[in-house]
Each structure stands twice: as structure tokens, then as C-alpha cells.
């Protein structure tokens, strides 16, 4: 019987009502009296010296308030990078400046050169067309391997080369791994591309800057996953505004997927310019602008080698990856191909020796940073593809090869510095066989064959690291921030509760799921609990939502704060009940004295806290409000097994997804309905990467896929109903809820399933195809089949 409330219930989402009736309040819905509009004039070439900017005519255009150029930002800080990676020789990465508006040079198509502020957006756009730019075009570097050749054009003149860092992990293992590969009975090698993607949350980015002339306070409304991080980065590093004079609000946000983590130049511009022009300044990104200014994702070129002994046990793994940073370092960019990628290369397997080399490269392209999964999809894809290829080379069953090498004992310390606390990879594989009906595949294969279609089955596993992260650990690894989370649990006099959290909900349903936890702890109705988030003025300093961390870290902070509240409430109850505090129990919203029929209701205790007439004032303070900061002591390690069945049309190469099943282990689950929804969405994004999506540049650095006419994302008729299950649960051992995180799993686990399935289909049809790079468009698949 499903629960009808609390932890484990599929409570319907309360936020849906406003979204379904058009009453959501997204950043673009915010208009402030007397506001101006800014339009950014962006570079239309990938690399050029700015020889001149003539704004004279444009400045005279109707409605123009002021035109800003890079010169207006002399002395203003650089857009900061939040993570410093140390290379394999112990040297810090190369870190270029990133001005708010271009200074001297432009380095990618979309680099902002001028900002036109006008009374209306149309006037700003019209005036931008009247600006005369003198750009002297320079050769562009686009290909990563060419970018690090001697003599390559440099993206940044003041750096020694285009190599941001050359990272080795674990460097001490390098020679042992080389040796193990040399002496292996079998080595499977695969070279592959993890295609460049654009996150494309449906809501484009928006920023509205406001400045109060009376108080010298600033407010920025922005489409962010983490308003406190924006306040910290922009206030401290770019504009020099102290936190107490700067409020950042991220109201309803229409999806993020990572791309709304980062601090962007447009946010700093609108905040800065609001004071300069003495009026609010609003920017709304167009979709084409988003393609040229939102941080992109993935874009790795990798060679992976898997060594095995004569019994097919994995003995060593070696990878070499080129990771694109784009033209500047976005907020978390350096950490993605390193600490969020290299540490996951053990996957679900007990490979004893692993060495990961990553060369991060500057190119004349849009900056690249975290996109749903961030490093973990790249790790999973190469590992699960090479394992699949190995099985085919050895002529063994891909599932059995995986099972043979599974980690089965926990905790397990990998050779890449992380310790998995729990997991049961055979259990999720067993569950997958059931929900994916793997035993029925042959019959479906025969049926497809009758219709002239090539059918294939792809199976894979994944592991990810969520709940980022222990602050002291990430500090050692180069993070320039702590990665705790905060919560204030404010109990009102009548017993209702507001929870101010540093986590941010932009589709994940925190407003529904977080109250389920509080309701369970206290035994009150979920409707009595409200979540307040997205505003630095109301929530304690928090690090926001990304990396599937909200429940594992933010939820844990909330639990800790609620425990403090309950402890204090028990003290009050013990006074009211004239009993020892140790005998007070809280259940179903009633405080009782163990072994007696004496009780007092939650609401009476909370009322006493705020109307402390009969109250132990000499022992405890009035009021009932507590704050907790929770710093996790490990990552969490969700895992799972996925399968996909495809049909390939031998005439056209078109791939259709016939079925998709996902068996995940997320530990304990608060709202199964929301968890399934997260997995569905992740699978669709992974299928998009595998079959459709590709952000492409030509050799001159022109972006060729800068609109929805050119960048293909999954539509409703590209995907089937999915079969998802999360009944395999090995709870996390180190957070109070035993939760692991579910937001990225689908996007991590699904790309290899699709590619494995297509390769399987082609091999079954007799084609000598071992790999096709994503996206598997009909043209590529047809070419693979036809030599």
C-alpha cells in the first residue's frame, strides 16, 4: 500500500498548480518600474583584435541611455573560475582573465563587445546595428589536438600555450598501469568522441539588475541554480560589492541542467550598469544568443585501453582525454574532466590499476562546463563502451563479463581515490533483466527481422558520485569554495513551518519533497510545511543545486536543523508535561511521556515557544527556529543498470528507440514519483546525446548549430515510454536520510546503452562495426553499414 504522505509517498507536487495556471514567476516575468533594456553586441567571428569601436551614431539613436564597452570595465574584476586544478608536474593550471566585456580581443563567436542600454529592447537592438566595429580577424583554433601543437595560434597571448593543464591521476600509478597493459593477456582499445552539447533549459537566461540610490544596495534577479554562489563570485571577485549590500534572487527557474550554475558576464553587467545609469537594467537572452553564451557541455576526445588477464579479469585501465575548455574558464570548468571524471573511472568494477590523463585545452569556442552529469557521463560512456567492445572481442556475454568484474564488497576503496560506501550491482542487473525482459529479446529480434529491421540490445552499468562534497576534501583538490548546504527551520507560533534552504528548485520538486521529510519527522501534515528558497535575503548561505546534491546535502542540513528544533521542543514539552526530558517522545504531532497517557500537541508546544507564559525561561530562550550547516563526509554513489533496444533501418540508417529500461539504486527515496520523473528526463537527454544532439563548429570557429532549427533535441516522437525501477536500495551510510541522489543518473547511464545497442544491431547483421561516434545520425549509421 503506497503511503499517502511523508517519506516514501508520491505526493503530488504543490508547485504544479502555479505552473499549470500561468502563475509561475520566472525572471523574465519580473519588470521593475523605469527599467531599461540591454542588448549585447557580440562578436560574429571566433578570434579577432578589436581595432576600433565607434558608438557615436548609435549613441544618438532614439531611446539610447548609454553604450558600454570593455573600456568601462577597466579596473573591474575578471569573471572568476571557482576551481584550480594542479597538473601532473605540480604546477597550477593556466588561468586567463575573463573580462565582462571584451578588452582588446574577442575569443569566440558570441563574446560580448558592447552593451547598449536603452528605454526599450527594440531601441537597444536598433542602436546596436548602428555601432561600427573594426575587427581584425585572427586565425581561430578549434580542434583541440591542433590547438596544443607547437606554433598554434594562442587564444590568450599572455599564456604560454593553449594547454590549460596536463593532469595525471593517479600519477603514482602511471608506470604500474603501463606495465600491466604491456603484460596483459588481452587489451581492448577504443578511441571515441564525447560530443559537445548545449544544455538548453527551456527558459533562456535572464538577468535584471537593480540599484537603490537611497541605500546603495543592489539586487540581481537571475536565472540561477545557486543565488548565493552568484552573490559570492560577483560581489567579491568582479564588482567589489560586499554581501550585505547585494541581494541575489533566483525565482522560478525554468530548468538548469548545470548551465545555470555559473556566474556569467551578463549578470555582472546588469548589476554594475544599474548603478551607472541609475535605472534597473534587464537582459533576456534570445535562444540564438544562448547557444553563443551559455556554457556548453562534454566535448572530450578520448583513447581508452582496458587490460585483462587470461580469465577476463580486468587488470588495468588507461585513458587519455583532451577536454575542451573553450575560450575562457567557466566557473567549475577545470574540475569537470578531472575530479568529476577521473575519480569515476573504476565504474562498477574492481580494476586494480587505473591511470587517467587529461589535457584541458583552450579553443576559440564558447566556454565548456558542467552539463547534467558533468564528467561522470564522459567516464561512464568510455568505460561501458570499452567493456562492451572487450566482450565482443573475447566472444563472451557482455553482461557476464560485467558481473565477473563487479565490485561486490563494500565499503570499497577504488584505485582512483574514492570509497564507495554501499551498492549492489548484481541486484540492479537482476532487476534490469526483469523489467527489460531481456529473456524475450530473441523473440523481438525475430519479429524485427520479419519487418526488415535490424534490432540490437545494449546493456550497461553506471556509477556516479553525487552529493558534492566534503569541503575539506574538495579544498585539497582545488575548489575555491566550501560545498556544504544550509537550512533554517522556522517554526511559527501555530506550528506551521517555513524551511529556508540554500538548495534551489528548478524542476526537481523541492517544494513538495522537502516538506515530506519534515512532516515525517514531526508527524504533521505536509501542507503545514513550506520551503523558501532562491533568495539570499531569506536563506542562510548555501551552495545551491547541482550534482544531484539537494536531498543528500541540503536535505541533510534540513534534517539537522529539524533535529535541533525537535530537541528544543522536547525541552518545552517536558516543562509543560512536568516530566523528564528523557521520557518525552514525539509521534504523530504529539509529545507524550513514555509509559503514560500524558501528551501535549505540537501546536501547543510551538505556541508556548512564542507565548512563553508557562515556560522555562531561565533554561531556554523563547522561539523555535534553528539553523544547520551540513558538510558531507563522503560523496554518495548511486548506481544502476540500463538497457536499450533499438531498430536500425538498413535502408536509411535511422535508429529508433524501441524500449528503454533503467534499474537504479538511489538508496532511500522520499518521493518515488519525482524520482521516476528525474530518471525519465535524464534518459531523454542521454538519448538526445546518443542520437540527435551535436554542437558543431566549422574550422573558422563559426558555430553551426545556434538555433533549434540546427540543434536537434528529442521530441515526443523520438522516445518511447520508459520502464524505470528504483526498488533496489542500498541506503547511503553517511547521511541522515540514507539518500544518494537521482538527478543525473538517467543522463549518465543512457548514452552507452544506445550506442551499445546500435553496434549490437549492426554486428548481428554481419557488419564489421565496432564503434560509431555520437550522435548516431542516420547518415553516420548508414555510412558505417556501407563501408
Amino acid at each position, binding site marked *: 500500500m503506497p503511503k499517502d504522505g511523508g517519506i516514501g509517498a508520491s505526493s503530488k507536487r504543490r508547485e504544479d498548480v502555479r505552473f499549470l495556471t500561468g502563475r509561475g514567476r520566472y525572471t523574465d516575468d519580473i519588470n521593475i518600474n523605469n527599467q531599461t533594456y540591454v542588448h549585447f553586441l557580440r562578436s560574429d567571428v571566433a578570434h579577432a583584435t578589436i581595432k576600433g569601436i565607434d558608438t557615436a551614431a548609435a549613441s544618438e539613436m532614439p531611446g539610447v541611455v548609454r553604450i558600454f564597452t570593455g573600456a568601462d570595465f577597466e579596473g573591474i574584476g575578471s569573471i572568476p573560475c571557482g576551481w584550480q586544478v594542479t597538473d601532473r608536474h605540480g604546477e597550477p593550471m593556466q588561468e586567463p582573465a575573463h573580462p565582462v566585456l571584451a578588452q582588446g580581443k574577442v575569443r569566440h563567436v558570441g563574446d560580448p563587445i558592447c552593451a547598449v542600454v536603452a528605454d526599450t529592447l527594440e531601441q537597444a537592438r536598433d542602436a546596436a546595428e548602428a555601432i561600427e566595429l573594426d575587427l581584425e580577424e585572427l586565425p581561430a583554433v578549434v580542434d583541440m589536438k591542433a590547438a596544443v601543437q607547437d606554433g598554434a595560434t594562442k587564444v590568450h597571448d599572455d599564456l604560454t600555450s593553449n594547454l590549460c593543464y596536463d593532469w595525471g591521476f593517479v600519477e603514482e600509478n602511471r608506470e604500474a598501469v603501463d606495465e600491466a597493459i604491456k603484460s596483459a593477456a588481452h587489451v581492448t582499445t577504443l578511441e571515441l568522441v564525447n560530443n559537445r552539447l548545449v544544455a538548453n533549459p527551456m527558459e533562456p537566461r535572464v538577468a535584471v539588475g537593480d540599484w537603490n540610490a537611497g541605500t546603495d544596495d543592489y539586487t540581481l534577479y537571475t536565472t540561477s541554480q545557486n543565488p548565493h554562489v552568484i552573490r559570492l563570485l560577483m560581489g567579491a571577485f568582479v564588482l567589489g560589492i560586499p554581501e550585505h549590500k547585494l541581494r541575489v534572487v533566483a525565482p522560478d527557474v525554468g530548468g538548469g541542467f548545470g548551465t545555470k550554475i555559473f556566474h556569467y558576464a551578463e549578470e555582472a553587467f546588469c548589476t554594475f550598469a544599474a548603478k551607472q545609469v541609475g535605472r534597473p537594467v534587464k537582459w533576456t537572452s534570445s535562444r540564438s544568443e544562448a547557444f553563443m553564451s551559455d556554457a556548453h557541455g562534454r566535448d572530450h576526445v578520448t583513447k581508452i585501453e582496458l587490460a585483462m588477464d587470461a580469465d577476463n579479469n580486468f587488470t588495468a585501465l588507461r585513458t587519455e582525454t583532451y577536454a575542451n575548455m573553450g575560450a575562457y574558464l567557466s566557473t567549475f570548468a577545470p574540475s569537470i574532466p578531472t575530479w568529476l571524471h577521473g575519480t569515476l573511472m573504476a565504474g562498477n568494477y574492481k580494476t586494480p590499476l587505473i591511470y587517467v590523463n587529461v589535457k584541458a585545452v583552450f579553443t576559440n569556442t564558447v566556454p565548456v562546463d558542467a552539463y547534467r552529469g558533468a564528467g561522470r557521463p564522459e567516464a561512464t560512456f568510455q568505460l561501458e563502451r570499452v567493456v562492451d567492445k572487450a566482450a565482443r572481442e573475447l566472444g563472451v556475454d557482455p553482461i557476464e563479463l560485467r558481473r565477473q568484474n563487479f565490485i561486490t564488497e563494500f565499503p570499497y576503496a577504488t584505485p582512483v581515490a574514492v570509497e564507495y560506501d554501499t551498492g549492489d550491482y548484481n541486484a540492479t542487473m537482476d532487476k534490469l533483466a526483469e523489467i527489460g525482459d531481456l529473456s524475450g529479446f530473441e523473440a523481438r529480434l525475430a519479429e524485427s527481422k520479419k519487418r526488415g529491421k535490424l534490432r540490437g540490445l545494449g546493456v550497461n552499468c553506471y556509477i556516479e558520485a553525487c552529493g558534492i562534497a566534503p569541503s575539506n576534501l574538495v579544498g585539497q583538490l582545488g575548489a575555491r569554495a566550501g560545498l556544504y548546504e544550509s537550512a533554517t527551520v522556522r517554526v511559527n507560533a501555530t506550528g506551521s513551518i517555513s524551511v529556508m534552504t540554500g538548495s534551489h528548485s528548478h524542476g526537481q520538486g523541492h517544494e513538495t519533497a522537502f516538506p515530506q521529510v519534515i512532516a515525517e519527522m514531526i508527524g504533521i501534515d505536509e501542507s503545514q510545511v513550506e520551503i523558501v528558497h532562491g533568495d539570499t535575503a531569506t536563506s542562510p548561505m548555501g551552495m545551491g543545486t547541482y550534482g544531484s546534491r539537494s536531498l543528500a546535502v541540503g536535505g541533510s542540513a534540513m534534517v539537522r536543523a529539524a533535529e535541533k528544533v525537535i530537541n528544543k521542543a522536547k525541552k518545552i514539552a517536558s516543562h509543560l508535561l512536568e516530566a523528564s526530558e528523557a521520557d518525552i517522545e514525539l509521534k504523530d504531532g504529539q509529545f507524550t511521556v513514555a509509559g503514560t497517557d500524558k501528551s501535549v500537541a505540537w501546536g501547543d508546544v510551538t505556541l508556548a515557544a512564542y507565548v512563553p507564559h508557562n515556560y522555562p525561561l531561565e533554561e531556554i530562550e523563547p522561539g523555535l527556529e534553528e539553523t544547520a550547516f551540513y558538510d558531507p563526509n563522503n560523496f554518495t554513489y548511486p548506481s544502476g543498470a540500463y538497457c536499450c533496444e533499438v531498430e536500425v533501418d538498413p535502408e536509411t540508417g535511422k535508429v529508433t528507440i524501441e524500449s528503454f529500461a533503467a534499474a537504479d539504486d538511489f538508496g532511500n527515496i522520499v518521493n518515488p514519483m519525482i524520482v521516476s520523473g528525474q530518471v*525519465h528526463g535524464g534518459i531523454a537527454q542521454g538519448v538526445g546525446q546518443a542520437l540527435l544532439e551535436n554542437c558543431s563548429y566549422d574550422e573558422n570557429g563559426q558555430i553551426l548549430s545556434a538555433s533549434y532549427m540546427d540543434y536537434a533535441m528529442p521530441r515526443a516522437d523520438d522516445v518511447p515510454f520508459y520502464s524505470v525501477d528504483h526498488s533496489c536500495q542500498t541506503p547511503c551510510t553517511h547521511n541522515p536520510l540514507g539518500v544518494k541522489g537521482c538527478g543525473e543518473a538517467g543522463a549518465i547511464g543512457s548514452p552507452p546503452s544506445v550506442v551499445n545497442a546500435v553496434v549490437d544491431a549492426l554486428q548481428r547483421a554481419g557488419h564489421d562495426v565496432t564503434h560509431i561516434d555520437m550522435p548516431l545520425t542516420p547518415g553516420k549509421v548508414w555510412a558505417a553499414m556501407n563501408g
Partner: protein
Amino acid sequence: MTQVSMTVNGKAVSGEVEGRTLLSGFLRDSLNLTGTHVGCDTSQCGACVVHVDGVAVKACTMLAGEAEGTEVTTIEGMANPDGSLSTIQQAFQDHHGLQCGFCTPGMVMSAAALLQDNPNPSETEIREYLEGNICRCTGYHNIVKAIMAAAGQDVSKIAAE
């Protein structure tokens, strides 16, 4: 600037617009009906779908002036007269057919238009009809399921949750 008049969600409205003003802009900026969202600039995403004289239209692809004299319905006009969620809206909530909510107004408006034309659509018909509406959050699973449920179909056999 020209004067336009139309009926929006049953109310007569009028306003001054430039010739280039899109219907989506008129609804959002002049009428403050911000439920109609703009997610792209190439008529691909469908977040701005409204009904004009009963037909689903992408409001970013119609000039405000072209809507002169028409009856427009937006997401703000879709709830029942007593303010409760309509059958389609309720089905989206019941079946978790939305996450971030940004594409949702367009999805609901498209679903309403579909069910008006085809009260009992198949899964395939729903998926094909939604070709013009992109959702980045749900993977479409629960949107399709919600529309089937709104049409009165038994969706209990479709993967749980």
C-alpha cells in the same frame, strides 16, 4: 504605433503596438499575461502556444496586429470557472507531467487543441502532435501519459509513477 483590440480569456482588451510586436510580446508585456513563455526565436519550442479563434497558434509567430478582432485563450484562461484545475491541467499534476514548468503552458494548450480535434488519441498520435513542443525535463513520458489520462484512457498499465 497601431491600436489592436481582441478578446483574451473572455475579456475585451486593446493596446498600442508597433507593427513588429508579436502576439507573445503583446500578451506578456502589454497585458501582463506572463504564463505564455518564449523559449526560442525560431518557432520550434512551443512554449508560447495559445489558442486564436480555437486554433493552437505559436504566439511568437503571429503579429499582435494579425490577432485584431480574434478570441485568444492563454494558459491563464484554462482553469475551470471556479478556479480549480481543468481536466487536462489536473491530469498533468496527477501524472507528474511537468517539472520546471516552463514548457508547461504550451504543452497544456497543445494538449487541449489535440483533444478538441481528436478526443481519444493514441500514444503515437499524441507524440506526433507534440512534435512542435519541446520539453527538456520530463522525457515526455508523463506528458503523454497525462494527455492519455485526460482523454479518459486507462494509463495504469504504463510504467508506474
